[in-house]
């Protein structure tokens, strides 16, 4: 009995250590769990294991998990938006523009991939881990490379700011997932499905919070400018979109008002002193896209 109490106290001490100093947390948690198991206290061992998962659930999502989530969301985006538009030259061009912008974005160390969706609607999406999509309809609306670069910059902004991962964290809570990471995704695929479906609904049907959209609008011109594109191209594009969309209620369900977006973009250009470089590269854009879209 005394031995059990001693083991229990030792384990409790280890748990305290693990919560006091997060460094080496996994190792300490594992040691505590093993000690509890060794003392024959399976219940305590289980609690410590759960505690580790709880800590894991509170911590931000790691890149490995982010990639899995990104892939799962990408599967749904492609399925719901007519599949990928199979035009190798245009796909390569969109990837070059996107990766040129991503090269100096605020999260330049991860891979960004871009695909064209075979859909007439005017839209673009970003899934975690840099899976970015633009519709054929959007490309038809764009007039030059600077507009494309800033539109892709907007989507890259969603990834750098981990906007969708925020939704996933909340989606996990709604789905009742206490643990995090790929462990639960593999052990409980149904819970993972619920989490992804919740995030897809938010991304494709309800739209992200307006503050997130406006933050990405700001980043669109900042990231585009860093490469040398004219940031005013994004203003021109938003203005054209306003004319095309008019009072399309479905569109405004997922996006802030154009007047708010234009105000935010123009004030960013002004406040950050972003130069109107005049670099639009309309020829390069039209040469690659003409006759294909």
């Amino acid at each position, binding site marked *: 009995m005394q031995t059990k109490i001693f083991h229990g106290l030792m384990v409790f001490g280890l748990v305290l250590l693990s919560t006091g100093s*997060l*460094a080496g*947390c*996994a190792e300490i948690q*594992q040691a505590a769990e093993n000690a509890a198991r060794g003392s024959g206290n399976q219940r305590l061992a289980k609690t410590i294991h759960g505690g*580790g*998962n709880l*800590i*894991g659930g509170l*911590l*931000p999502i*790691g*890149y*490995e*998990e*982010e*990639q*899995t989530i990104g*892939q*799962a969301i*990408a*599967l*749904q985006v*492609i*399925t719901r938006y007519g*599949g*990928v538009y199979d035009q190798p030259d245009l796909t390569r061009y969109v*990837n*070059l523009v996107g*990766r*040129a912008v991503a*090269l*100096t974005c*605020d*999260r*330049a*160390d991860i891979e960004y*991939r871009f*695909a064209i969706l075979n859909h007439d609607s005017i839209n673009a999406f970003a899934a975690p881990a840099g*899976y970015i999509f633009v519709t054929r309809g959007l490309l038809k609306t764009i007039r030059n490379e600077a507009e494309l670069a800033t539109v892709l910059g907007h989507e890259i902004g969603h990834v750098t700011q981990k906007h969708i991962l925020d939704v996933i964290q909340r989606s996990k809570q709604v789905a009742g997932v206490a*643990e*995090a*990471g*790929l*462990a639960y*995704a*593999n*052990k409980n*695929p*149904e819970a*993972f*499905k619920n989490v992804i479906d919740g995030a897809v609904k938010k991304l494709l049907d309800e739209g992200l919070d307006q503050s997130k959209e406006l933050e990405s609008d700001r980043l669109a011109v900042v990231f585009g400018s*860093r*490469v*040398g*594109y004219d940031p005013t191209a994004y203003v021109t594009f938003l203005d054209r979109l306003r004319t095309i969309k008019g009072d399309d209620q479905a569109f405004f369900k997922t996006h802030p008002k154009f007047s708010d977006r234009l105000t935010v973009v123009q004030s960013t250009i002004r406040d950050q002193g972003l130069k109107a*470089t005049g*670099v639009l*590269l309309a020829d*390069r854009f039209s040469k690659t896209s003409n006759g294909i879209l």
Partner: protein
Amino acid sequence: MNHRCACLAVMVSLVTAAIVITDPAFGETVYVAAKSAQLRSGKTSLDPVVASLRLGETLEVVKRDDRWLQVLTTKGVTGWIYSTNVSSSKPMGGDNELAALGQSVRRTDASAVTASAGARGLDKASEDYAKRSGITQQQRDAVDRMTAYKISDEEIQAFLKYGRLGEYAD
């Protein structure tokens, strides 16, 4: 004559040192903010590359000149880098420290991760998700191809150069 030359040389050195030291940027620490960047012997994109720099590398500013910075690397190489390739704050990684810790907490179950995660193809959890959601093989292949799609840093540099973007703008 020799005495006058020596005096002149000392004065020139002092003036040069004063100019360098009074440059407000002198000694400032900056970080490479681009995924990859080139350090050049001069302040134009036509000057030869003296070193290739990686994201997050620490640099000490010697001086600033318009859109270029003369910097010293930790390996002692001096050269010029285009201003948008550096940042005064250290760029964040794919995993920040907390996220990396979260990953380590969960590592006990990492055996379920397939080796292809992060390299090529769908990983186990997203493959399972595809099956459960009735997503066709064609769409799975599309994400697979997207994951594997590669463009080298050299190709991106060539693209920037052709469009006279970034450091090739001058």
